[in-house]
């Protein structure tokens, strides 16, 4: 169980290897890695700066991780989120869940990233040709998170 908020990059392969090292009960690991895109809303994005709320960010990520572990039988979980200035292609976020069986790992991973997007206090400032632009929260993200209002029903709806 680990939550890290950091400016620096991370190595997904090394993180996954470390997550399961020494375990003989984990049957599968599911991970999601989010990257910076070079386009947003049809406009080119040169870079973005991620601002966060130190202290609350860690608390919220830990609460989200604890919720996942309460809902699914997980052997190991990992949440890494970067802050500061990032360029297209850079990694922003990684979540990973390890469990004896794949269904719990897939569902918990999906839950973690959906909830993180609507609860962890991060804000993106995009650099566009027209200047800095704060990214607005997306309704789809709220809807994605709302699917998880009841435990374990992620895959029922399209």
């Amino acid at each position, binding site marked *: 169980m680990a939550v890290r908020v950091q400016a620096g990059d991370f190595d997904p392969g090394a993180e996954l290897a470390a997550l399961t090292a020494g375990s003989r009960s984990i049957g599968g690991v599911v991970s999601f890695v989010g990257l910076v895109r070079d386009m947003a809303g049809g406009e080119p994005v040169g870079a973005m700066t991620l601002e966060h709320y130190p202290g*609350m960010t860690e608390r919220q990520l830990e609460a989200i991780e604890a919720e996942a572990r309460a809902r699914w039988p997980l052997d190991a979980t990992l949440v890494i*989120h970067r802050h500061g200035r990032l360029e297209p292609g850079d990694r922003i976020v990684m979540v990973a869940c390890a469990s004896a069986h794949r269904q719990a790992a897939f569902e918990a991973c999906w839950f973690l990233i959906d909830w993180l997007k609507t609860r962890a206090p991060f804000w993106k400032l995009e650099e566009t040709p027209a200047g800095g632009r704060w990214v607005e929260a997306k309704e789809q993200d709220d809807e994605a998170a709302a699917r998880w209002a009841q435990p374990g029903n992620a895959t029922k709806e399209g």
Partner: protein
Amino acid sequence: MRLLYFAWLRARIGIGEETVEPPADVRDVAGLVEWLKGRGPNYAEALANLSVVKVAVNQEYVPYGHPVRAGDEVALFPPVTGG
């Protein structure tokens, strides 16, 4: 009471953090925000549309009816956009 502002709220208000002593009749988040709006046009503009202003008291999300007290850390910020 320590106030924190993030993202475009910080940019519009012009500072990221301040310590204030609101009058005694400020008892909840809604009262605090109304009091802040009277402190200058930058506050009034930043807090004009509260449907896009989220609040955390002592690092936990709260509704506008949540009480605020001396010594609290109160953060105002837009809906989050991480991940």
